[in-house]
Protein backbone atom coordinates (compact mmCIF):
# COMPACT_ATOMS: atom_id res chain seq x y z
CA UNK A 1 0.00 0.00 0.00
CA UNK A 2 1.46 3.27 -1.05
CA UNK A 3 1.60 6.13 1.37
CA UNK A 4 0.40 9.19 -0.46
CA UNK A 5 0.81 12.00 2.02
CA UNK A 6 4.29 12.79 3.15
CA UNK A 7 6.01 16.06 3.66
CA UNK A 8 3.90 18.06 1.29
CA UNK A 9 1.83 18.96 4.34
CA UNK A 10 2.33 22.56 5.38
CA UNK A 11 5.23 23.36 7.68
CA UNK A 12 4.24 24.53 11.13
CA UNK A 13 4.38 28.08 9.79
CA UNK A 14 1.70 27.21 7.18
CA UNK A 15 3.90 27.01 4.08
CA UNK A 16 4.20 23.77 2.17
CA UNK A 17 7.50 22.27 1.11
CA UNK A 18 6.32 22.44 -2.51
CA UNK A 19 5.80 26.16 -2.14
CA UNK A 20 9.22 26.63 -0.60
CA UNK A 21 10.86 24.38 -3.22
CA UNK A 22 9.37 26.41 -6.07
CA UNK A 23 10.73 29.60 -4.51
CA UNK A 24 14.27 28.37 -3.87
CA UNK A 25 15.74 30.05 -6.93
CA UNK A 26 14.42 33.40 -5.67
CA UNK A 27 15.60 35.41 -2.70
CA UNK A 28 13.65 34.78 0.51
CA UNK A 29 10.43 36.77 0.74
CA UNK A 30 9.31 38.72 3.83
CA UNK A 31 7.80 35.64 5.44
CA UNK A 32 10.90 33.51 4.93
CA UNK A 33 13.20 36.25 6.20
CA UNK A 34 11.35 36.23 9.51
CA UNK A 35 10.59 32.51 9.72
CA UNK A 36 13.32 30.35 11.28
CA UNK A 37 11.49 27.22 10.13
CA UNK A 38 11.52 28.24 6.46
CA UNK A 39 15.14 29.35 6.76
CA UNK A 40 16.16 25.96 8.12
CA UNK A 41 14.23 24.15 5.35
CA UNK A 42 15.82 26.40 2.73
CA UNK A 43 19.22 25.36 3.99
CA UNK A 44 18.21 21.70 4.02
CA UNK A 45 16.93 21.81 0.42
CA UNK A 46 19.69 24.03 -1.00
CA UNK A 47 22.23 21.32 -2.02
CA UNK A 48 19.52 19.30 -3.78
CA UNK A 49 18.13 22.39 -5.50
CA UNK A 50 21.58 23.43 -6.68
CA UNK A 51 22.47 20.00 -8.07
CA UNK A 52 19.04 19.68 -9.72
CA UNK A 53 19.47 23.03 -11.45
CA UNK A 54 22.94 22.02 -12.63
CA UNK A 55 21.54 18.71 -13.89
CA UNK A 56 19.00 20.60 -16.01
CA UNK A 57 21.68 22.96 -17.32
CA UNK A 58 23.83 19.93 -18.10
CA UNK A 59 20.99 18.57 -20.24
CA UNK A 60 21.85 21.18 -22.84
CA UNK A 61 25.34 19.79 -23.41
CA UNK A 62 23.93 16.27 -23.17
CA UNK A 63 21.43 17.24 -25.88
CA UNK A 64 24.23 18.38 -28.14
CA UNK A 65 26.12 15.15 -27.62
CA UNK A 66 22.97 13.13 -28.35
CA UNK A 67 21.94 14.97 -31.49
CA UNK A 68 23.81 12.74 -33.95
CA UNK A 69 22.70 9.59 -32.16
CA UNK A 70 19.07 10.72 -32.16
CA UNK A 71 19.29 11.60 -35.84
CA UNK A 72 20.43 8.08 -36.62
CA UNK A 73 17.70 6.47 -34.46
CA UNK A 74 15.07 8.69 -36.07
CA UNK A 75 16.40 7.94 -39.55
CA UNK A 76 16.16 4.18 -39.00
CA UNK A 77 12.62 4.42 -37.67
CA UNK A 78 11.48 6.78 -40.44
CA UNK A 79 12.89 4.43 -43.11
CA UNK A 80 10.75 1.64 -41.66
CA UNK A 81 7.69 3.86 -41.42
CA UNK A 82 8.04 5.09 -45.01
CA UNK A 83 8.37 1.51 -46.27
CA UNK A 84 5.23 0.64 -44.32
CA UNK A 85 3.35 3.61 -45.79
CA UNK A 86 4.33 2.69 -49.35
CA UNK A 87 2.91 -0.78 -48.85
CA UNK A 88 -0.39 0.73 -47.69
CA UNK A 89 -3.73 1.28 -49.47
CA UNK A 90 -3.78 1.25 -53.28
CA UNK A 91 -6.28 2.88 -55.59
CA UNK A 92 -7.32 1.79 -59.07
CA UNK A 93 -5.87 4.02 -61.76
CA UNK A 94 -6.98 2.13 -64.88
CA UNK A 95 -8.87 -1.05 -65.66
CA UNK A 96 -7.72 -2.48 -68.99
CA UNK A 97 -8.14 -5.75 -70.78
CA UNK A 98 -4.57 -6.54 -69.75
CA UNK A 99 -5.29 -6.02 -66.08
CA UNK A 100 -5.73 -3.37 -63.43
CA UNK A 101 -3.24 -0.59 -62.87
CA UNK A 102 -3.12 0.54 -59.26
CA UNK A 103 -1.42 3.44 -57.55
CA UNK A 104 -0.18 3.79 -53.99
CA UNK A 105 -2.32 5.93 -51.71
CA UNK A 106 0.93 7.43 -50.45
CA UNK A 107 1.69 8.89 -53.89
CA UNK A 108 -1.79 10.43 -54.02
CA UNK A 109 -1.49 11.87 -50.52
CA UNK A 110 1.96 13.29 -51.22
CA UNK A 111 0.61 14.96 -54.38
CA UNK A 112 -2.32 16.39 -52.42
CA UNK A 113 0.04 17.76 -49.74
CA UNK A 114 2.39 19.22 -52.31
CA UNK A 115 -0.44 21.09 -54.04
CA UNK A 116 -2.04 22.47 -50.90
CA UNK A 117 1.33 23.42 -49.36
CA UNK A 118 2.11 25.50 -52.45
CA UNK A 119 -0.88 27.76 -51.78
CA UNK A 120 -0.26 30.61 -49.38
CA UNK A 121 -2.82 31.55 -46.75
CA UNK A 122 -3.87 28.03 -45.72
CA UNK A 123 -2.36 25.24 -43.64
CA UNK A 124 -3.26 21.66 -44.41
CA UNK A 125 -4.54 19.70 -41.42
CA UNK A 126 -6.20 16.25 -41.65
CA UNK A 127 -6.73 14.93 -45.13
CA UNK A 128 -7.61 11.67 -46.80
CA UNK A 129 -8.16 10.08 -50.18
CA UNK A 130 -11.28 8.03 -50.74
CA UNK A 131 -12.43 5.84 -53.62
CA UNK A 132 -14.43 7.84 -56.17
CA UNK A 133 -17.84 7.12 -57.67
CA UNK A 134 -16.30 5.00 -60.42
CA UNK A 135 -13.20 2.78 -60.36
CA UNK A 136 -10.87 5.22 -62.08
CA UNK A 137 -11.58 8.21 -59.88
CA UNK A 138 -10.93 9.30 -56.32
CA UNK A 139 -12.42 11.75 -53.87
CA UNK A 140 -10.72 13.82 -51.20
CA UNK A 141 -11.55 15.18 -47.82
CA UNK A 142 -9.41 18.05 -46.60
CA UNK A 143 -9.40 20.10 -43.41
CA UNK A 144 -7.64 23.43 -43.48
CA UNK A 145 -6.68 26.28 -41.21
CA UNK A 146 -7.14 29.66 -42.88
CA UNK A 147 -4.81 32.56 -42.27
CA UNK A 148 -6.63 35.49 -40.68
CA UNK A 149 -7.74 38.03 -43.27
CA UNK A 150 -7.66 35.63 -46.21
CA UNK A 151 -10.66 35.00 -48.48
CA UNK A 152 -11.68 31.42 -47.73
CA UNK A 153 -13.96 31.00 -50.75
CA UNK A 154 -11.36 32.24 -53.20
CA UNK A 155 -8.65 30.06 -51.70
CA UNK A 156 -10.71 26.87 -51.55
CA UNK A 157 -11.79 27.35 -55.17
CA UNK A 158 -8.13 27.83 -56.07
CA UNK A 159 -7.17 24.66 -54.20
CA UNK A 160 -9.84 22.62 -56.00
CA UNK A 161 -8.67 23.90 -59.40
CA UNK A 162 -5.02 23.25 -58.57
CA UNK A 163 -5.74 19.73 -57.31
CA UNK A 164 -7.81 18.78 -60.37
CA UNK A 165 -5.13 20.12 -62.70
CA UNK A 166 -2.22 18.44 -60.93
CA UNK A 167 -3.90 15.05 -60.55
CA UNK A 168 -4.96 15.04 -64.20
CA UNK A 169 -1.52 16.10 -65.48
CA UNK A 170 0.82 14.27 -63.15
CA UNK A 171 -1.11 11.10 -62.39
CA UNK A 172 -3.90 10.87 -64.92
CA UNK A 173 -6.70 10.29 -62.46
CA UNK A 174 -9.90 12.26 -62.24
CA UNK A 175 -11.14 13.73 -59.00
CA UNK A 176 -14.76 13.43 -57.92
CA UNK A 177 -15.65 15.24 -54.74
CA UNK A 178 -13.12 17.48 -53.06
CA UNK A 179 -14.62 18.21 -49.65
CA UNK A 180 -12.86 21.10 -47.99
CA UNK A 181 -13.55 22.11 -44.44
CA UNK A 182 -12.10 25.31 -42.99
CA UNK A 183 -11.75 24.28 -39.37
CA UNK A 184 -9.54 26.96 -37.86
CA UNK A 185 -8.04 30.41 -38.32
CA UNK A 186 -4.39 31.16 -37.63
CA UNK A 187 -2.34 34.31 -37.41
CA UNK A 188 1.00 34.29 -39.19
CA UNK A 189 3.15 36.66 -37.12
Amino acid at each position, binding site marked *: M*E*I*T*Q*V*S*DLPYSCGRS*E*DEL*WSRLSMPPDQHELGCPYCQAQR*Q*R*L*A*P*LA*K*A*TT*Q*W*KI*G*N*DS*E*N*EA*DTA*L*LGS*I*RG*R*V*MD*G*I*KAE*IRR*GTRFTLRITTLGTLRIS*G*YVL*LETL*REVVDSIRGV*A*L*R*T*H*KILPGSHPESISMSI*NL*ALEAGEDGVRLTNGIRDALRARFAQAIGISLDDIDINLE*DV*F*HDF
Partner: protein
Amino acid sequence: MSGPEKPDQHELRTLVARAQSGDPRAFENILVLYQHGLLRFCRSMINSSGEAEDVLQEVYLSAWRQLSTLQSPEALSVWLYRIARHRCIDHLRKRTPLPQDFHDEEGNPGPRQVLEPRANASLESSAETRAAIVELRRFVNELPATQRECWVLKEVHDLSYSDISKIVSAPLTTVRGRIARARVTLAERMQPWK
Protein backbone atom coordinates in the same frame (compact mmCIF):
# COMPACT_ATOMS: atom_id res chain seq x y z
CA MET B 1 16.57 23.08 -22.19
CA SER B 2 17.90 23.37 -25.69
CA GLY B 3 16.33 21.84 -28.77
CA PRO B 4 13.95 23.06 -31.38
CA GLU B 5 11.59 25.86 -30.47
CA LYS B 6 8.25 24.76 -29.10
CA PRO B 7 5.56 25.12 -31.76
CA ASP B 8 2.61 27.41 -31.14
CA GLN B 9 -0.90 25.96 -30.87
CA HIS B 10 -1.62 26.28 -34.59
CA GLU B 11 1.67 24.64 -35.56
CA LEU B 12 1.14 21.83 -33.07
CA ARG B 13 -2.41 21.16 -34.30
CA THR B 14 -1.18 21.19 -37.87
CA LEU B 15 1.69 18.80 -37.15
CA VAL B 16 -0.53 16.34 -35.30
CA ALA B 17 -3.33 16.48 -37.87
CA ARG B 18 -0.93 15.91 -40.74
CA ALA B 19 0.87 13.09 -38.96
CA GLN B 20 -2.48 11.46 -38.22
CA SER B 21 -3.23 11.68 -41.94
CA GLY B 22 -0.07 9.72 -42.71
CA ASP B 23 2.39 12.52 -43.43
CA PRO B 24 5.79 11.10 -42.43
CA ARG B 25 7.50 14.51 -42.44
CA ALA B 26 5.03 15.87 -39.91
CA PHE B 27 5.57 12.83 -37.72
CA GLU B 28 9.33 13.22 -37.95
CA ASN B 29 9.00 16.87 -36.94
CA ILE B 30 7.10 15.74 -33.86
CA LEU B 31 9.91 13.33 -33.01
CA VAL B 32 12.48 16.10 -33.38
CA LEU B 33 10.53 18.19 -30.87
CA TYR B 34 10.43 15.51 -28.18
CA GLN B 35 13.41 13.25 -28.90
CA HIS B 36 15.84 14.65 -26.31
CA GLY B 37 13.29 14.55 -23.50
CA LEU B 38 12.12 11.06 -24.43
CA LEU B 39 15.67 9.70 -24.58
CA ARG B 40 16.49 11.18 -21.18
CA PHE B 41 13.30 9.75 -19.76
CA CYS B 42 14.05 6.27 -21.18
CA ARG B 43 17.58 6.45 -19.79
CA SER B 44 16.30 7.40 -16.37
CA MET B 45 13.83 4.50 -16.43
CA ILE B 46 16.21 1.86 -17.79
CA ASN B 47 19.64 2.93 -16.56
CA SER B 48 21.38 1.68 -19.66
CA SER B 49 22.07 4.00 -22.56
CA GLY B 50 22.19 1.28 -25.22
CA GLU B 51 18.96 -0.32 -24.10
CA ALA B 52 17.29 3.09 -23.73
CA GLU B 53 18.12 3.82 -27.37
CA ASP B 54 16.53 0.52 -28.45
CA VAL B 55 13.45 1.33 -26.41
CA LEU B 56 13.28 4.79 -27.95
CA GLN B 57 12.93 3.20 -31.38
CA GLU B 58 10.03 1.14 -30.07
CA VAL B 59 8.50 4.30 -28.63
CA TYR B 60 8.65 6.00 -32.03
CA LEU B 61 7.09 3.03 -33.80
CA SER B 62 4.35 2.67 -31.18
CA ALA B 63 3.61 6.37 -31.45
CA TRP B 64 3.29 6.13 -35.21
CA ARG B 65 0.98 3.13 -35.03
CA GLN B 66 -1.14 4.60 -32.24
CA LEU B 67 -1.45 8.11 -33.65
CA SER B 68 -5.18 7.73 -34.20
CA THR B 69 -5.65 7.30 -30.44
CA LEU B 70 -4.32 10.78 -29.74
CA GLN B 71 -7.50 12.76 -29.18
CA SER B 72 -6.14 16.23 -28.58
CA PRO B 73 -2.97 17.77 -30.02
CA GLU B 74 -2.49 19.60 -26.73
CA ALA B 75 -2.07 16.21 -25.03
CA LEU B 76 0.77 15.21 -27.36
CA SER B 77 3.54 15.50 -24.79
CA VAL B 78 1.69 13.51 -22.12
CA TRP B 79 0.66 10.91 -24.71
CA LEU B 80 4.28 10.42 -25.87
CA TYR B 81 5.65 10.12 -22.33
CA ARG B 82 2.93 7.57 -21.53
CA ILE B 83 3.97 5.47 -24.48
CA ALA B 84 7.62 5.80 -23.44
CA ARG B 85 6.81 4.74 -19.91
CA HIS B 86 4.89 1.68 -21.09
CA ARG B 87 7.65 0.63 -23.48
CA CYS B 88 10.24 1.04 -20.71
CA ILE B 89 8.22 -1.07 -18.29
CA ASP B 90 7.71 -3.74 -20.98
CA HIS B 91 11.45 -3.73 -21.61
CA LEU B 92 12.29 -4.05 -17.93
CA ARG B 93 9.84 -6.94 -17.62
CA LYS B 94 11.58 -8.80 -20.43
CA ARG B 95 15.09 -7.98 -19.30
CA THR B 96 15.00 -9.03 -15.68
CA PRO B 97 12.36 -9.45 -13.06
CA LEU B 98 10.56 -6.11 -13.03
CA PRO B 99 11.81 -4.00 -10.16
CA GLN B 100 9.35 -4.74 -7.39
CA ASP B 101 8.98 -1.09 -6.71
CA PHE B 102 6.78 -0.60 -9.76
CA HIS B 103 4.17 -2.45 -7.71
CA ASP B 104 5.25 -1.85 -4.16
CA GLU B 105 7.44 1.13 -3.83
CA GLU B 106 8.22 1.07 -0.15
CA GLY B 107 11.66 -0.16 0.67
CA ASN B 108 12.59 -1.56 -2.73
CA PRO B 109 15.36 0.30 -4.40
CA GLY B 110 15.25 0.56 -8.18
CA PRO B 111 17.81 -0.86 -10.55
CA ARG B 112 21.22 0.51 -9.76
CA GLN B 113 23.48 2.07 -12.24
CA VAL B 114 27.18 1.66 -11.97
CA LEU B 115 28.50 5.16 -11.92
CA GLU B 116 31.95 6.43 -11.39
CA PRO B 117 32.79 7.00 -7.75
CA ARG B 118 32.57 10.46 -6.40
CA ALA B 119 35.37 12.57 -7.72
CA ASN B 120 38.22 13.30 -5.40
CA ALA B 121 37.50 16.35 -3.34
CA SER B 122 38.49 19.34 -5.30
CA LEU B 123 38.41 22.97 -4.50
CA GLU B 124 37.51 23.77 -8.05
CA SER B 125 33.81 24.53 -8.02
CA SER B 126 33.01 23.22 -11.50
CA ALA B 127 34.51 19.86 -10.63
CA GLU B 128 32.54 19.87 -7.42
CA THR B 129 29.37 20.72 -9.29
CA ARG B 130 29.93 17.86 -11.73
CA ALA B 131 30.55 15.52 -8.85
CA ALA B 132 27.38 16.72 -7.12
CA ILE B 133 25.38 15.97 -10.27
CA VAL B 134 26.92 12.50 -10.52
CA GLU B 135 25.98 11.87 -6.91
CA LEU B 136 22.48 13.20 -7.40
CA ARG B 137 21.97 10.97 -10.45
CA ARG B 138 23.14 8.01 -8.41
CA PHE B 139 20.76 8.83 -5.58
CA VAL B 140 17.91 9.29 -8.06
CA ASN B 141 18.70 5.90 -9.59
CA GLU B 142 18.49 4.38 -6.16
CA LEU B 143 15.02 5.75 -5.50
CA PRO B 144 12.09 3.36 -5.80
CA ALA B 145 11.15 3.34 -9.50
CA THR B 146 7.75 4.93 -9.03
CA GLN B 147 9.28 7.81 -7.08
CA ARG B 148 12.13 8.12 -9.52
CA GLU B 149 9.95 8.46 -12.62
CA CYS B 150 7.73 11.08 -10.96
CA TRP B 151 10.66 13.07 -9.60
CA VAL B 152 12.48 13.01 -12.95
CA LEU B 153 9.36 14.07 -14.86
CA LYS B 154 8.81 16.94 -12.43
CA GLU B 155 12.30 18.23 -11.81
CA VAL B 156 14.23 17.29 -14.96
CA HIS B 157 11.44 17.51 -17.55
CA ASP B 158 9.53 20.36 -15.87
CA LEU B 159 6.17 18.65 -16.30
CA SER B 160 3.20 19.61 -14.15
CA TYR B 161 1.76 17.35 -11.45
CA SER B 162 -1.35 17.00 -13.58
CA ASP B 163 0.60 15.84 -16.65
CA ILE B 164 2.67 13.42 -14.56
CA SER B 165 -0.49 12.02 -13.05
CA LYS B 166 -1.76 11.25 -16.57
CA ILE B 167 1.57 9.78 -17.70
CA VAL B 168 1.97 7.39 -14.77
CA SER B 169 -1.78 6.73 -14.46
CA ALA B 170 -1.83 7.57 -10.76
CA PRO B 171 -3.95 10.03 -8.80
CA LEU B 172 -2.58 13.52 -8.32
CA THR B 173 -2.21 13.01 -4.56
CA THR B 174 -0.15 9.87 -5.15
CA VAL B 175 2.12 11.72 -7.55
CA ARG B 176 2.55 14.57 -5.09
CA GLY B 177 3.32 12.06 -2.36
CA ARG B 178 5.91 10.25 -4.46
CA ILE B 179 7.67 13.47 -5.40
CA ALA B 180 7.58 14.72 -1.82
CA ARG B 181 9.08 11.47 -0.55
CA ALA B 182 11.72 11.49 -3.26
CA ARG B 183 12.61 15.06 -2.34
CA VAL B 184 12.95 14.21 1.34
CA THR B 185 15.26 11.28 0.53
CA LEU B 186 17.32 13.21 -1.98
CA ALA B 187 17.61 16.30 0.20
CA GLU B 188 18.86 14.15 3.04
CA ARG B 189 21.39 12.34 0.86
CA MET B 190 22.65 15.59 -0.62
CA GLN B 191 23.38 17.12 2.80
CA PRO B 192 27.14 16.44 2.57
CA TRP B 193 27.16 18.80 -0.43
CA LYS B 194 26.21 21.79 1.67
